[in-house]
């Protein structure tokens, strides 16, 4: 986690894949910010502009060198690789 600056996860309320990803991050003690795009219209617009699509979960892993990895869907192997776990 030391090489990771932040993890931001864009979610909706009853999304099973979002729920599973949050559990996965918690299991590995990864701190993350959750942005609910179903209840915050401005966040939803920012999310669509950032990701260029409308599927969740969408995760942005910001690394120490300020590069970002964008992960669409609950892609556990990709998340594990990006987070070094």
């Amino acid at each position: 986690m030391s090489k990771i600056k932040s993890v931001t996860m864009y979610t909706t309320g009853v999304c099973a894949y979002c729920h599973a990803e949050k559990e996965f991050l918690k299991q590995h003690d990864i701190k993350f910010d959750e942005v609910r795009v179903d209840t915050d219209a401005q966040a939803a617009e920012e999310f669509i502009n950032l990701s260029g699509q409308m599927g969740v979960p969408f995760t942005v892993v910001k690394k120490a060198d300020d590069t970002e990895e964008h992960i669409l869907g609950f892609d556990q192997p990709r998340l594990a690789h990006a987070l070094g776990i």
Partner: protein
Amino acid sequence: MAKIYDVAVVGAGPTGLSAAVYTTREDLETVVLDHGVIGGLIATTEIVDNYPGFPEGIGGLELSDLMRKQAERFGAEIRTGVDVAGLERSDELLTLKTNSDPVLAKSVLIATGSSYKHLEVPGETELGGRGVHYCATCDGPLYRGKRLVTVGGGNTALQETLFLAKFASHITMLVRGSEFRGAEVLVEQIQKLPNVEVKFNTSITKILAEGHKVSGVETVDNATKAKGQLETDGVFVFVGLLPNTGWLGGAVELDKRGLVKVGNDFATSLPGVYAAGDVCAGSIGQIASAVGEGVSAALSIRHYLAPHHVAK
């Protein structure tokens, strides 16, 4: 030496989790493997209204979580993020090839269920996530105040359209046949919604885009062959299910639709390998039946392992 499980269950849906409750209670060391979410397709269902024991219905996510907790209480090891890519048998031992280390077991239960079928029309793949979706509970809330098209006339299409109608300003439901194939109680609820319009005998032939987002669909009337066009902001597809059996690669016998052939005891053509739930030929695709089949398969596995099993 790698660990050898008594039972490896592939798939953490209601079938796999129910089986794991029974095998672990029989003191059989059990691992449950899944590549995605616990609960499978039920986890993506907003409300499960027809599973006994929940008179007010229960959220699909919550039911999945309760099933997982129950299996874990008896000692099941549940691993997610595991892609199972093959199955082999050698010297009475079964090996599951995965995206990490292989998993060894004396018996295997195939409970991989099914996935949503795609329309297979131009535009669908390119616009995935950009207006074409398969999970209403995940992506539906982003369409607040927008126009949507839903495709399908079965229970899933009806239930998911009911969910989407809470957000969308207007939904056109396209049904290939001349009537719904789902439960009457769901049909009645759909018919009461002022923002849902149903077009029967209608199929999508192409999904249209403006920029990188869905802008409409081209349709055909299956009775008159008349072509049409509809403007929409998104398309949600619920046109049936495909069994998740591609990973088996011929290890067990399948029918022509790709469903696993099983006997009355849920045994497949490969000794020590059982299958239950939606992945099997003859399944009726209900949570309650998936649970029952998982339990029956678990008891068959117990019987199969009995001559070799020494209680710990």
